[in-house]
């Protein structure tokens, strides 16, 4: 098609028009991409796109000639996802390139007999490119979500050494199978590393204790015992206590306490420790 050759000649016009459109869009949306950066990308994209488009490959997005374009697009989309742009904005970015090309070529297209097939194939090509931006955009978002998930599971299971030989593990949030696994791994590892003999699992932050959560807790306790440590469960609220009784869960084999403080007292007793009040010289029996 001759039109492809015309397009190559009009590269600068396309670039100028697209830049205008971007500036206009940015003003509309009120959150401009770093202008220098976007202009860089726009120039590079137009350059590589117009250079790689040929009569032979215009209907084949999978052609290796477009690899450089796709690579660039992925880079832009990924950056935009990170910066919190909506997929619509990122999609419009590439769609406006199609508009720019068609507008620049409109006079030539009017004269040409190949106009309609050219518009169809070009649209198909540009749409595929836009799809690439969506895919990358979603990948970018998923990347963010995965990082957050990792972070959440890391911050939510700290093992605290409260005394020599006493570990505390406050559990916050819902205790599902994967959480239990992380909690248990951290706890057992820490028991080995610190040589602790008492572990306190505090469930004040667990909203619901159903039979599955109870089963997970029972497993955690037996695993701790196998490691030679005693396990105390604390933070059982009154309403949770009633619910556990109605559900028929048997926790009688486990030492349970209502607060972390009373669990700590119990742990001191196990380790034969006492806390003394220096003011009154009276020993508070623990």
């Amino acid at each position, binding site marked *: 098609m001759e039109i492809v050759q015309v397009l190559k000649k009009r590269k600068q016009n396309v670039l100028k028009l697209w830049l205008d459109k971007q500036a206009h869009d940015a003003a509309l949306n009120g959150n401009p991409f770093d202008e220098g950066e976007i202009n860089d990308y726009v120039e590079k994209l137009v350059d590589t796109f117009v250079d790689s488009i040929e009569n032979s490959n215009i209907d084949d997005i999978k052609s290796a000639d477009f690899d450089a374009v796709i690579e660039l697009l992925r880079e832009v989309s990924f950056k935009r996802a990170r910066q919190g742009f909506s997929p619509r904005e990122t999609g419009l970015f590439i769609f406006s390139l199609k508009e720019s090309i068609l507008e620049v070529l409109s006079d030539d297209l009017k004269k040409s007999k190949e106009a309609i097939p050219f518009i169809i194939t070009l649209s198909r090509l540009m749409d595929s490119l836009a799809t690439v931006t969506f895919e990358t955009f979603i990948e970018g978002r998923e990347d963010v979500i995965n990082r957050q998930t990792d972070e959440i599971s890391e911050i939510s299971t700290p093992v605290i050494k409260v005394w020599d030989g006493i570990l505390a593990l406050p559990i916050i949030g819902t205790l*599902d199978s994967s959480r239990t696994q992380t909690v248990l791994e951290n706890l057992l590892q820490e028991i080995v590393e610190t040589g602790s003999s008492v572990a306190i699992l505090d469930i004040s932050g667990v909203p619901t204790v159903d039979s599955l959560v109870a089963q997970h807790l029972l497993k955690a306790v037996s695993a701790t015992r196998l490691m030679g440590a005693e396990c105390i469960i604390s933070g059982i609220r009154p*309403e949770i206590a009633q619910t556990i009784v*109605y559900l028929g869960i048997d926790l009688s084999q486990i030492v349970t306490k209502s607060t972390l403080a009373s669990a700590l007292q119990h742990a001191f007793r196990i380790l034969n420790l006492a806390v003394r009040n220096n003011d009154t010289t009276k020993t508070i029996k623990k």
Partner: protein
Amino acid sequence: MTTLQKSGTMIPITITKETVLVVKEQDVVPLRNTVKQCAVKIKMGLVNQTKLITAASELVRNMLRYAKGGAVLVETVSVGRNQGVKLTFQDDGPGIADINQAMQDGFSTGNSLGLGLPGTKRLVNEFDIKSTVGSGTTVTIIKWVNG
């Protein structure tokens, strides 16, 4: 089809209703929150709220585990001056072959504690289970504000 327990003779009037779809483990927490909102709206006490939410949690876990998900209808209902939350758990899973056996403490086909169904029945005021092998299970529970 086997029915274990008929609900009371008074037919409750539905005040609000909402359907929650549950297909993955992450859907359990939103369902619990929906149930909690309903319970708070009709001024249910903290203990009854906890019992209801725990019951919902048990049933929804059963649904996920054995039927790979289903739908939960969350309703606030009233009979006379008494208000309550009614939950209907519907799935099209494998069904329960022997409901009487499933309602016994400690019976489980899935290596769990076996307290889900019998425990739930003890936590709520009205409990009804219908199941057909091969076509699914429907569990309906009601927890009254004063009950």
